[in-house]
């Protein structure tokens, strides 16, 4: 029987130290309060003959002391917790991107190479992995206790989560946001494989084409190519070299064309219209499922990388 959670990611130990630190502070405060409580209650019980002497009248000094002491300790804990949190929100640029779609009540995982699986995720050892999370229906939450990480998976919005697994093994994956009748059964596993094992696993599960290639087929199938190609009938912005570059919008602002922006532009094309273009694109909300959107995004990303030398 094991009493501790395995630490299987580089961030896990940091979080455990923080929780340990909090435990220490809490134990100290709890010890102080309980000691004083029992000490006073016994020493100053009403039939105790002990002389009370002068009762502390001026409370101002005490009040200021414990207010400032509490504030200082809390501020330290705040800084510690926030620094780790901010780290957990900044994926390294070279992270391996894996797409996860949640729906009642399963996890669908898609790899850049086109591999797919359900309720299970395979990641390579010691490699930063960035998960792009989207939900098909309600709010879910991707929780891997061994990595000490979790993130809500929202419908209509991309969330990302990154970690570097540093221990080979199979770990639990839970949905930790109540999502309906089958919520408790919406579990899965995360398997960490060493580099060669991972490559082997990828090729053993090889498919007809990579995510981007499948996206390319969908790009034609859904009619995107009709307008977004250079010789289109309607004037629409070219998507070559788009990924990762700044896009000027018609309201004067600029956004970076990341996964979320591209997904939003497919689902809600009239929200962020590119400057000097007409808002003529129809919404594909309800037409294209989240798992296909992921492929389109991968395709558009591949266009970007091909254009740049």
């Amino acid at each position: 029987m094991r009493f501790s959670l395995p630490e299987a990611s580089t961030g896990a130990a940091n979080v455990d130290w923080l929780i340990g630190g909090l435990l220490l502070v809490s134990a100290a405060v709890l010890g102080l309060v309980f000691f004083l409580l029992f000490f006073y209650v016994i020493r100053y019980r009403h039939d105790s003959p002990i002389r009370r002497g002068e009762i502390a009248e001026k409370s101002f000094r005490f009040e200021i002391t414990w207010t400032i002491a509490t504030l200082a300790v809390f501020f330290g804990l705040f800084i510690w917790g926030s620094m780790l949190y901010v780290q957990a929100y900044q994926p390294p640029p070279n992270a391996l991107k894996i797409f996860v779609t949640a729906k009642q009540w399963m996890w669908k995982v898609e790899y850049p190479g086109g591999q797919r699986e359900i309720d299970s995720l395979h990641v390579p050892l010691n490699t930063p992995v960035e998960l792009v999370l989207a939900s098909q229906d309600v709010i879910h939450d991707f929780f891997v206790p061994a990595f000490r990480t979790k993130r809500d998976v929202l419908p209509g919005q991309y969330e990302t989560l990154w970690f570097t697994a540093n221990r080979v093994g199979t770990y639990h994956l839970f949905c930790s946001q109540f999502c309906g009748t089958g919520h408790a059964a919406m579990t899965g596993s995360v398997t960490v494989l060493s580099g060669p094992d991972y490559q082997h696993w990828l090729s053993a599960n090889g498919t007809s084409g990579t995510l981007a290639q499948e996206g390319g087929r969908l790009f034609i199938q859904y009619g995107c190519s009709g307008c977004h190609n250079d010789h289109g009938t309607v004037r629409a912005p070219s998507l070559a070299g788009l990924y990762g570059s700044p896009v000027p919008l018609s309201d004067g602002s600029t956004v970076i064309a990341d996964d979320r922006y591209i997904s939003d532009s497919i689902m809600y094309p009239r929200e962020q219209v590119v400057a000097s273009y007409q808002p003529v694109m129809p919404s594909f909300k309800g037409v294209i499922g989240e798992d296909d959107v992921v492929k389109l995004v991968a395709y558009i990303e591949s266009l970007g990388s091909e254009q740049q030398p």
Partner: protein
Amino acid sequence: MSDLAIPQQQYAPAREQLSYLQDGHSLRSWLLTTDHKRIAILYMASITVFFFVGGAAAALIRYNLILPEGALRSAETYNRLFTMHGIIMVWLFLVPAVPVTLGNFLVPLMIGARDLAFPKINLLSWYLFIAGGACILWAILAGGVDTGWTFYVPLSSDYAMGHVTLAVVGVFITGFSSILTGLNFIVSIHRLRAPGMTWYRMPIFLWSLYSTSVILVLATPVLAITLLLLSLERIFHVGVFDPQLGGDPLLFQHLFWFYSHPAVYIMILPGMGVVSEIIPVFSRKELFGYKFVAWASVSIAVIGFFVWGHHMFVAGQSAYASVTFSLLSFFVAVPSAIKVFNWLGTLHKGYIHFDAPMLYALGFIGLFVVGGLTGLFLAALAADIHLHDTYFVIAHFHYIMVAAWCQHILPGCITGGRRSAGACIRKWSLAPLRC
């Protein structure tokens, strides 16, 4: 100031009066009463009923968890049970618990008034509470709700099968009961204090109740509006929160927690007030640092409005927002710590009597400190990522809510208002227990 404006007839009359319990025995005399003590007892009886319904749900939740596969064998039943437990306990029990029972009973006595400022509105708020409670019970009897007490969209607006609208309407109606009660207390405390009772001479319980009332009046309307929008979305498919309809699910969470976090302070502040009354009485000493305890209540109420985002650290709000909310959440813990230290200061060099209320109050300190310290784990961002949505959170708020509640309303009832500045000790101190 406001003392000058008090009309003559609001002082307690000198002549002997019938006790509120003797003054009529018919059902009518109870259901149409405008007497604050009788209304307090009406509330007491009704929240006790709801407490047992919610408690039964809790017992069934535990029963299901006896076996790994679930003793109830049905996920649907289980989901409905914990939703029912949450909704009933939060809105029909914890939020009203102390203000409407002890508050109704004690506010007029403590400020030396004959009744609350608006006795009829007081009765109206009980009827609203009952109407709202009936809606919620109806929703349960009709088959239940399975969204969890937080009604997160789009689960509650688009996907859940249960009687969400009915339950939401019930919560909406009880909200008006809360608003009216809060309003009544605020006006009473401002306008009906006995001559010479300045703010700093008020019993400390009134400070916490006043802070609670401010939250009730300011936060509850936000919940009401949110639930109204949720119902509109569910019934008429108006897109507000559901992304399918062009809404934003995070907007719902922001609005919901803008009420529901301060609501936590609605539940705990009056309890702190009760404990701040009991400890001095049974230590035979003045409360240590009265002004600090009083202003701690006010600052909890004020800062409590700006910490709702700590329910959303992993929900997809921006990292900047999370960092800000984390800092503010640590800040709101400071006044609570101040209170605990002042209670300890009160015990120092006292003559401590171990009557039942005092034992409860001491137990409250222990539980509250554990509940408060576990809160630090959840306010620290990186730790919260791991602990969020787990049993750690459940344990944290049950420490504060359930245990603290049991530890303060019981002694509160036992002590009644034995000590209230200026008001004499009365026979009714044990009365709430007799019914």
